[in-house]
């Protein structure tokens, strides 16, 4: 008899728990209309940056290509001619292609790049029905001149690009600077950024 009563109590307890959960706050973010805010250095679609004068940062050195563990990057470099300088250095990338289907978004290309040309943006919506459409070449990777120069990942504010839509109103948990200090890679990048600032002055 006591066991039966215990069972009834267990059922009632279960019912009370489910009833309470009916009014609990739901963690669902209704994705296509509202997007989750993520860390500033989220690894998404790549972007080729420019210098402030509009020249491409990429010097066609192929270090990203050789650093890529998935063999997703193809770079074919070419010499700059004096009358048509595409980048400040001697060479530029005549072709630059990333197969986003192969890419594992590890960010090794970003680390390998000596001029901070290739960066991973927080854009993540690139699905397509055609395989071919996921091979991104320079026409889509390079920041268009009218859109500025592109932002280095460590200078990027928290959140996702404005043109991707409404962001969920969740409290941002990542403080940008704290985020960098927290990881070894962040520290390294910070130092590199200092180095790049000097490089920029040299231009």
């Amino acid at each position, binding site marked *: 008899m006591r066991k039966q009563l215990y069972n009834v109590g267990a059922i009632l307890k279960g*019912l009370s728990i489910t009833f309470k959960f009916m009014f609990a706050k739901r963690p*669902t973010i209704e994705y296509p209309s509202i997007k989750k805010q993520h860390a500033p250095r989220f690894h998404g679609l790549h972007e080729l940056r420019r210098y402030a004068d509009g020249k491409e940062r990429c010097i066609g050195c192929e270090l990203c290509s050789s650093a890529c563990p998935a063999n997703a990057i193809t770079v074919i470099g070419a010499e700059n001619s004096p009358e048509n300088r595409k980048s400040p250095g001697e060479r530029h990338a005549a072709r630059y292609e990333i197969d986003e289907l192969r890419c594992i978004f590890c960010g090794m290309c970003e680390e390998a790049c000596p001029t901070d040309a290739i960066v991973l943006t927080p854009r993540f919506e690139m699905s397509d029905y055609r395989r071919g459409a996921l091979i991104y070449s320079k026409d889509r990777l390079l920041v268009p001149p009218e859109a500025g120069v592109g932002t280095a990942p460590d200078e990027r504010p928290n959140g996702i690009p404005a043109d991707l839509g409404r962001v969920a109103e969740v409290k941002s948990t990542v403080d940008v600077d704290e985020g960098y200090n927290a990881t070894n890679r962040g520290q390294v990048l910070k130092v590199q950024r200092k180095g790049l600032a000097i490089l920029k002055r040299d231009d």
Partner: protein
Amino acid sequence: MPDWIIILIKSAILLLVVVTTFAYSMLAERKVLGWMQLRPGPNRVGPWGLMQPAADAAKLILKEDLTPRTADPLIYRLAPFISLLTAFSVYAIIPFGASSAGTWAIGNVNAGILFLLAITSIGVYGITLGGWASGSKYPLLGSVRATAQMISYELGMSLSFIGVLILAGTTSLDGIVNAQAKWWFVVPQFIGFIVYIITAVAETNRVPFDLVEAETELVAGFHTEYSGLRFGLFFIAEYVNMLTVSCIASLLFLGGWNAPFGLDNLHVPGVIWFIIKVGFFMFFYMWLRATLPRFRYDRLMAFGWKFLLPLATLNLVVTAIIVAYMGH
């Protein structure tokens, strides 16, 4: 107007109401289940997902209607209609409000409960024949379970009715509700009420008694082979049966359209109270589904025969003795 035209109009309205209620109780169930599992539930089709039933119906109608090669074609096609027909025909006698001139019911049968029991017990044929005629093993197992389960729990259910009948002294649903003007039968017949609630869940094959379509063991039970609109008919029958047993629970135990707690002077139409009570039971169904796991088959049988049936019998005997010595 001749009587038959009035009855025809009433039937058409009732059919519309019951089908709409089915559609939105299905949506409500998905919503409630979602909330209890910390999900938002369907909310993509129309505002708050209110057009979801229409989308579901369109999907089911457009699906292919398959008949397995091993199936018995006639009975296989007939079975969903048996389920649906019996589910709907109960509404011929259910009164939705105080019917001095029979306004709130299609027919006022003086043996209402007997008619009700007779019709609902035909409902099991739809499931049994559907599973048997599918000509494959899982549906057969599901329909065998359905038969055993429904026969076992029908007994406890009938016995819990008889307690109410003794107290009310009539088998007409109108009379039973009128007899509850002072005390709802849930108070003197509390054990009967509990037995009825449990057996009602089992009769409609709902969680935690949904062994008939236990996904983990039987794929989808008796309707494994059904697709498209025929599956939809079984689905409608299940929800309409839920609605039926909720209506009966409100009529027999919660005073039907009588206002609760002496709220008579609010002058709310009786049918509103009735809808609130039925809605409470429908919510209770969904609540149970979100909470309880499925019974094991042997325990289901043991529970029905060794616990509910003796309990209902005891309740009946005690009620009969008290009524015999003290009058109504």
